[in-house]
């Protein structure tokens, strides 16, 4: 990566957050990983202008309270947050859901892999692409 980037992961599963952050750090040890457990906390973090705007938002779908889809819609309503690529990071493998979320503004739909090795390759691929 050209500069130190910040990644926000919104996922209620602590194990999945850990797995993701380990993979992200392996891709680039200078990445700043911020994790929150639900959509509400994600919006609080993102709307606080004192926080650095992340280069990527990885968003789980099935979370208590505000769902991933609702969180995505809120992000896309905000002109400051709108350009940040939102990558859906979910256990879902449903094609219909992938198409729907991309039509709502998601940049990419990633089905969570089960092995740490595959998480590395997915994260490495996503962080290596230009999404804007």
């Amino acid at each position, binding site marked *: 990566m*050209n500069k130190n980037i910040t990644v926000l992961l919104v996922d209620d599963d602590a194990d999945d957050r850990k797995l993701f952050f380990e993979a992200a750090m392996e*891709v680039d040890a200078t990445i700043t990983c911020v994790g929150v457990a639900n959509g509400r906390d994600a919006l609080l973090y993102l709307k606080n202008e004192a926080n650095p705007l992340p280069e990527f938002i990885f968003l789980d779908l099935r979370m208590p309270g505000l769902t991933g889809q609702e969180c995505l819609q809120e992000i896309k309503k905000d002109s400051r947050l709108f350009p940040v690529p939102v990558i859906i990071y979910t256990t879902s493998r449903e094609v219909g859901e992938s198409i729907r979320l991309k039509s709502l503004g998601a940049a*990419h*739909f990633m*089905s969570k892999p089960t092995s740490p090795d*595959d998480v590395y*390759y997915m994260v490495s691929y996503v962080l*290596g*692409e230009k*999404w804007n």
Partner: protein
Amino acid sequence: MVSVRCKMVVKEELAKIGLHYTMVELGEAEILETISTVQHDQIKSALLKSGLELLDDKKSVLVQKIKSLIVEVVHHSEEPLARKLSEHLSQKLNHDYTYLANLFSEVQGITIEKFFISHKIERVKELLVYNELTLTEIAYKLHYSSVAHLSTQFKKVTGLTPSYFKELGNKKRSMLEDL
């Protein structure tokens, strides 16, 4: 079936069996006649002799097309892709990327991303061996966002740093020159 040679082999073998095609393309061929079981087996064994495999179920054909497109992008394109790989595959194959990714993992046992990155690293190895480009130039050519990203990925896949890999190649070469 990436190269012209592969297409030629398919055309030649079909002609030998007496079959006529309307199209021989990336991973697929359209045959005018209805193929008998005997002809099917003849095509299969003829292609196998040339190192090609006959795939006749739709899922395997689609997976083969994904692999061919990735190989084409990584090994046979001078310019980096103007769009993301996921978009490229999706538009070329007319399927949502999630469908392609699920299918690929199910049939191949590895993810598209791993397949793609492994091929990129193979290409990096090839370019390092040619010794014509610096690592920075290789990183640019293969669309890496930085040399650091390339180096970390290289180490993850091969277990070696790019410079150590290059050094090993140079040592081998100098040993050969000493013979």
